[in-house]
């Protein structure tokens, strides 16, 4: 046992004061009698020399001294040392990606095996501090600042694999940073069906592997041009050691088509599945196989439908700008400024009360954006501000022959491009509207003849409405955000079968699907299907055999000394002694009172 604040032990000297006071205390008891004459001249007993000793042995005094010593001990913060085989900090990282659902030969999943292994590690490496990381593309972390294994075991046992993609080393490092950093941990154990690339050197990897897998790794559909129906593009991977004769089925919810495919072991295969009878916009492809991981035997696809861009035009018509707008999205003319997605002001002036998104091309807003007379221009250069509006735009390719000598815009406006030190492309926001100003007419620039112009306009519009994606195998992936900007005002999102996934109150700028399937977004601009698949990486070849026997590194499991605080015990003891003192005191008072009756 030792004391964390040994200086407090000096307070034991105060016991001397108690002893002195006890010695000084008069020990003469008062005894009231009815008749003193019966007591007068009675012979007094000779006083014993042991009286002081008896007084020192007074149980009350002894109890008080013991209480004092215990209280001083409490202030000195006593701790009791104990030695246990324990490490300081342990991190258990379990791969919780979708591929961990792969079934093993014994019928359990890779995740079950990983959890079993993790529980063994908890038992063999008890730690003061344990972090449990469920690594996936959406990593979760729980920490346990206790030596008790029960909450950690409970945490692990109650967990389930996700449908998310694999987590990365960065995800792991970020998670561990939230738990004190990689360096804090004496042992970091990663249990997964595949190794973690660029993992910190201290990470021990335990591999778990599942059975053979045949997977759909990509799926896309495009409508036939000039004829009805569609064509599906499917990519498959046979991760077994044998040829697989399987059938690929593509369905649009109403009709389906199938194609038999012979897959070579270990070789990705791309097949085109004609689907002339298709008339739907959402598709599902299924692999007719009985492999170890069923999660990648189905993939989904939804045809992207462009939104009409509602434009309200003010001022002169400019064919270049119209062309750029139409190149970006289907354009319709809005019935009024209030219903427009974009208000284009070309070489005109509009009132400041206008609301919405305003694209000003040599246009003005009264008392807000005003342009002076044109002066000679020059090469265009970026102001250095990073903005999505300039994504894909090369300012060096642009030139301005003339632009207003002075561009007066609100103070908080952001200048993105300049020419002759005069703002050329400026954005700002007010409570009423968001404005993008090209300060000169298009005729005074080379913009219409550069590829940067439609890109710039597309960038402007993509901030306003959702533009159709180009043909791609990339679809939304479980666990990763699906951007919701451009869909208009979201009303709700439903999963297949009509299950409500999110409503208006819970929808933010992005939506994180937690399982694959076809989702439907209901918004003010219409109904949009979204296909969500598991990450293709979940179907890549897995490790062939468990490798859980030899850790990659040694860890500091050693005799560790721990200090257990004793003050609560001492406080409890003091309370008991104080009660005892009260009892003794009352007992003595009663006895004295009885004696005084004489």
């Amino acid at each position, binding site marked *: 046992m030792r004391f964390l604040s040994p200086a407090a032990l000096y307070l034991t000297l105060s016991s001397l004061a108690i002893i002195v006071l006890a010695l000084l205390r008069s020990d003469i008891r008062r005894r009231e009698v009815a008749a003193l004459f019966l007591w007068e001249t*009675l012979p007094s007993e000779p006083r014993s020399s042991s009286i002081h000793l008896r007084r020192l042995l007074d149980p009350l005094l002894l109890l008080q001294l013991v209480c004092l010593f215990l209280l001083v001990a409490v202030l000195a913060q006593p701790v009791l040392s104990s030695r246990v085989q324990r490490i300081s900090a342990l991190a258990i990282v379990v791969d919780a990606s979708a591929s961990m659902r792969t079934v093993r030969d014994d019928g359990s999943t890779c995740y079950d095996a990983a959890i079993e292994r993790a529980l063994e590690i908890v038992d063999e490496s008890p730690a003061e501090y344990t972090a449990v990381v469920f690594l996936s593309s959406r990593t979760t972390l729980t920490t346990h600042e206790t030596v008790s294994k029960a909450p950690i075991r409970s945490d692990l046992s109650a967990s389930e694999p996700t449908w998310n993609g694999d987590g990365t080393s960065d995800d792991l490092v970020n998670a561990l940073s939230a738990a004190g950093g990689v360096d804090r941990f004496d042992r970091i154990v990663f249990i997964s069906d595949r190794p973690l690339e660029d993992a910190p050197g201290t990470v021990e990897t335990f591999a778990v592997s599942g059975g053979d897998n045949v997977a759909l790794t990509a799926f896309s559909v495009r409508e036939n041009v000039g004829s009805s129906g569609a064509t599906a593009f499917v990519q498959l991977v046979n991760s077994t050691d044998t040829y697989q004769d399987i059938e690929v089925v593509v369905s649009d919810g109403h009709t389906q088509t199938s194609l038999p495919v012979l897959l070579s072991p270990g070789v990705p295969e791309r097949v085109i599945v004609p689907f002339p009878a298709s008339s739907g916009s959402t598709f599902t492809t299924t692999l007719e196989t009985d492999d170890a991981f069923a999660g990648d035997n189905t993939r989904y696809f939804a045809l992207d439908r462009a939104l009409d861009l509602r434009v309200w035009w003010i001022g002169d018509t400019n064919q270049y700008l119209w062309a750029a707008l139409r190149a970006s999205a289907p354009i319709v003319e809005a019935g009024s400024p209030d219903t427009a997605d974009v208000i284009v002001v070309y070489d005109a002036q509009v009132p400041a009360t206008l609301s919405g998104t305003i694209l000003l091309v040599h246009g003005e807003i009264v008392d807000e954006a005003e342009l002076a007379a044109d002066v000679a221009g020059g090469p265009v250069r970026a102001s250095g501000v990073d903005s999505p509006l300039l994504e894909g735009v090369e300012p060096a390719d642009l030139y301005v022959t003339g632009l207003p000598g002075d561009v007066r815009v609100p103070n908080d406006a952001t200048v993105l491009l300049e020419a002759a030190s005069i703002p050329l492309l400026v954005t700002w926001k007010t409570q009423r509207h968001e404005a993008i100003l090209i300060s000169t007419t298009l005729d005074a620039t080379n913009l219409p003849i550069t590829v940067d112009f439609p890109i710039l306009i597309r960038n402007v519009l993509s901030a306003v409405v959702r533009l159709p994606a180009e043909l791609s195998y990339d679809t939304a992936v479980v666990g990763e955000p699906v951007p919701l900007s451009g869909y208009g005002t979201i009303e709700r999102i439903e999963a297949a079968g009509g299950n409500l996934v999110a409503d208006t109150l819970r929808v933010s700028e992005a939506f994180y699907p937690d399982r694959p399937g076809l989702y439907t977004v209901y918004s003010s601009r219409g109904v949009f299907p979204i296909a969500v698949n598991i990450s293709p990486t979940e179907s890549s070849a897995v490790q062939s055999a468990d490798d859980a026997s030899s850790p990659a590194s040694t860890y500091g499991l050693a005799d560790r000394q721990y200090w257990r605080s004793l003050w609560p015990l001492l406080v409890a003891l003091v309370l008991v002694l104080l009660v005892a003192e009260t009892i003794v005191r009352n007992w003595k008072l009663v006895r004295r009172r009885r004696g005084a009756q004489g």
Partner: protein
Amino acid sequence: MRPLLDEAFLRRLSRLRFLAKSQRGGRLTGHHVSPRVGMSIEFADYREYRPGDDLRYVDWNLYGRLEKLFVKTFAHESDLPVYLLVDASASMQLGGSPKATYAAQLALALSYLGLRSMERVGLYPFADRVLSNLPPRHGMPQLGRIYRALSDLTFGQDTLMDKVLSEFVSATKESGLVIVIGDLLCSLHMKEGLSRLLYRGDDIVFLQVLAPGEIEPQGGGLSRIVDVETGKHVTLNLGRSTLEEYKVRFEQHQGELRSLLHELGVPLFTLPTTRPLERVVFEDLREGGILR
């Protein structure tokens, strides 16, 4: 102080009455035969008629035979005034169960007993003098007055029995049964007062109430012995020999008290507060001839 008596005890008390050793006159009819003749139902004697006598008591039969007027006289059944002198000195407050409480309960029991048997009962608390007086009266309302007086007792200083008895004689004109309740741990200089009472024809009874610790003190160690009545004190280291010596001295005091009272024919009952009140009344006082 709450000198309460339980109901069963009171019912049993109603079967008792005071037994006076001598007969003496009383104002109202009671259970004691008075030597004075008067109007009562018990015939006593004849005497010659004197002018002014009540003609209703002329014995006409006797006049017919003797032709002399005689009037009938009757033995007068007189009530017995019972005077309760209760010690209200400071020393009565001593004791684990205070002697004053015991004394008050005893006084209340005797009051009830007396009033039930048509006696007049009065209360005279005393210390160094008679502190107050509640003259003897009939009837149960008097019990309430006595109860209140006992409850509101204000304890005085030391006890001066001789002075108290003299004051009492002066304050009361009628002889009766004088019951003194106190610890009597005071100067025994009271012979003169007692003699005056006896001369007047009073019956006197002393009920000495003592705390157990006064009879046999316990404890030990260095003690400041304080007289609660005078405030004087002595410091003694109490041990076995000192306490034994005290007991000798106490017995000596008691002996002197007994011999003084015995000499005057006054009965003394020493009652430790631990002795149940029922045993005092139904055993001690009955066997002592105070009650019947």
